[in-house]
């Protein structure tokens, strides 16, 4: 798998893969200056791999939620979460097992679509329930929101048309709800 370096210096992979040994950590933090640098710096320093990272304010004021997809080949999850807990700004960590969580991601891409090709791209977007959000003479920008695996497939098919630019947000996730339980994530507390 091709590896690149992201801006934080943490190692990242540029594609997801179905068999990847990944886990999703949903990290609730105090929204203080530098908190993202603390989290990404920790991953970089301890040699943990990040596949993707998304951050935005959470439901409670002064809190943000960071969704990190970690590569478990680089370090055991237990060490990663314990080290994260040591950051003073980290309030809670939920470990989201991919099979027990809902994951979403957004992709936008500009592809070549001169003349009749526009219809092909448009059909493809329709099949995936994506949207055409901008059209120029020989280019079209499409967007798709959904499960990251679905985005992978869409990206593959778009590739045949020639992708000019592409941006994905990295995944966000929450625990899957079912009838019996309100909360299916494992909230990790400091061990005794």
């Amino acid at each position, binding site marked *: 798998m091709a590896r690149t370096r992201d801006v934080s210096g943490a190692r990242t992979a540029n594609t997801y893969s179905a068999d990847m040994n990944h886990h999703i950590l949903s990290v609730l*933090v*105090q929204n203080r*200056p*530098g908190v993202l*640098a*603390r989290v990404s*710096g920790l991953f970089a*320093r301890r040699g943990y791999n990040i596949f993707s990272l998304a951050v935005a304010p959470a439901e409670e004021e002064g809190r943000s939620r960071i969704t990190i997809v970690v590569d478990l080949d680089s370090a055991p999850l*237990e*060490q990663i979460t*314990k*080290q994260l*807990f*040591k*950051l*003073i*700004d*980290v*309030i*809670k960590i939920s470990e989201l097992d991919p099979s027990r969580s809902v994951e979403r991601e957004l992709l936008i891409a500009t592809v070549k679509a001169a003349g009749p090709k526009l219809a092909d791209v448009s059909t493809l977007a329709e099949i995936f329930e994506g949207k055409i959000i901008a059209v120029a003479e020989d280019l079209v920008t499409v967007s798709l929101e959904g499960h990251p695996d679905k985005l992978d497939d869409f990206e593959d098919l778009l590739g045949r048309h020639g992708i000019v630019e592409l941006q994905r947000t990295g995944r966000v996730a929450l625990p899957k709800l079912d009838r019996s339980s309100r909360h299916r994530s494992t909230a990790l507390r*400091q*061990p*005794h």
Partner: protein
Amino acid sequence: MRDYVSEHLHEWVDLIFGYKQALHLRPHVIHGAVRHVLVRHEQGAGHAAEGYAHVSGKPGVAMVTSGPGATNLVTPLMDAFMDSIPMVAITGQVPTAAIGSDAFQECDTVGITRSCTKHNELVMSADEIPMAIRQAFHIATTGRPGPTLVDIPKDALTNEMEWYWPTDEEVQAALPGYRPNTKGHPRMIKEAAKLILASERPIVYAGGGILKARAAQALRELVELIDAHVVTTLMARGAFPDEHPLCLGMPGMHGNASAITAMQQSDLLITLGARFDDRITGKVDAFAPEAKIIHVDVDPAEQGKVRRPDVPIVGDANYVILEIIREIKELLQGGTRQADTSAWKSKISGWREQFPMTYEPSEPGGLLKPQYCIEQLNKYAPKGTIVASGVGQHQMYTSQYWKFNDPYTWVNSGGLGTMGFSIPAAIGAKAAMPDRTVWAVDGDGCFQMTATELVTATLEKLPIKVALLNNSFLGMVRQWQEMFYDERYSSVFLDSANVPNFVMMAESMGCVGILVESPEEVGPAIERANSINDRTVVVEFRTDATEGVFPMVPAGAGNSELILHPTQSDPTRTLQPEPKPIDTKLKDAH
């Protein structure tokens, strides 16, 4: 313009080590209730703060200016982080409006120190300062102690404000993600007590956490209750008296043979405030292969980081040890019998008899042995003497040959291994304990890194004593080159019997300088040094450059591949059931 920080800091500390802070600060501090020790280099301020914290248990405070002042503090911050020393650094910063503009003496202090502090913070206005400082002290001194840093821009320092100290509750409420667990889990504590009573080959593996938790008394109670031998790591020297019959001394790379072997062959390591450092374990896969592990540590991340414990207990060492003692007593009262450890204990006695710490004494008229110097320093030291050391062979000799019988008498740089640590750390220790004798044991390499702080010792009237073991080499590195690189010596000869002249150097800084070249001069020189209490004394011992530190477990080797002192390598005496060949082709750098 008022400076609120220095006006109010005395409510928290009585002493700070610093260097030209943001302009307004110093006069206030000097006239206020806080003593300000003016160092000669910011690294000195940091190590002095560490030395102060080491011996007093109170947080050491270093206060320095922005830019280069802050960057000079990085080494001590990392040192304190590695050795879990409570320390608060306060750094000046350029005015808030100038931040990010590459202003004169601006640097990204919080960025640079993020990975060498437990927590750090840049405050952006005056009214944030009290909370930031309270949090810095709270975080530095609770849970696993460590260094914290508050970066204060010049305008934030001097703007008008209503000063207040937040209450403990307010401080905690502002830190919802920081709840150190100090009480061990009762079920795990019970489990530990059972394992201890069932063990036939127990060893207590005591680390620096014992000292941080002020648990030396509790440790002794536990050890005597279960009648098991103790090893004290480099960070824990003094946590259990060396003269106690159950003390095996230091384990690890240069530990003594019985401590290493006892750990290696034990069936239960009762690990208290220690972290399975690579200098202790050697090759992890080969470390104490038959031992079950009880691991008591206040930092949950240490559990399972290196060696998976059978019984992990996250909590304050003092609290947990007392609870384990209570559980053991309950079990004993309930009729549980402790397993028979007598065979194990006699095995240990055998090793101790056969493999004591040893060196070859000087021949008459021969070169001075560094180990002998340490023994003599120890012999003449008044009760309660504190010893600080640099990093290298002299550090290992000190740990090996000084008999530590009291906690908080040993100050050293363990995790980071910072050359130059001893002199400033000794000054900090002296500032905390002015009535005690403080010896800094230094190497000629280390001395040349921070000796400039002897000026501080003289002018601030903090008279320490320096034992400079001058072997003309970066001795520890020389030893590695000798043993593992076929004696291909490279860049390790310092020529320090010629340059500098250490006695003159000492005298130029207001100290008494004494040169010792032969074994007969050692005792009288030390006695003379001990009799001078109003000035710093530097005793330079010219020692045998070819001397090496033994025993030694080569880096990356398993602990069974111990290299004994050449005089002990008699094949009729064995430590191991089956001695393994030693791999001398190890390339790991020190």
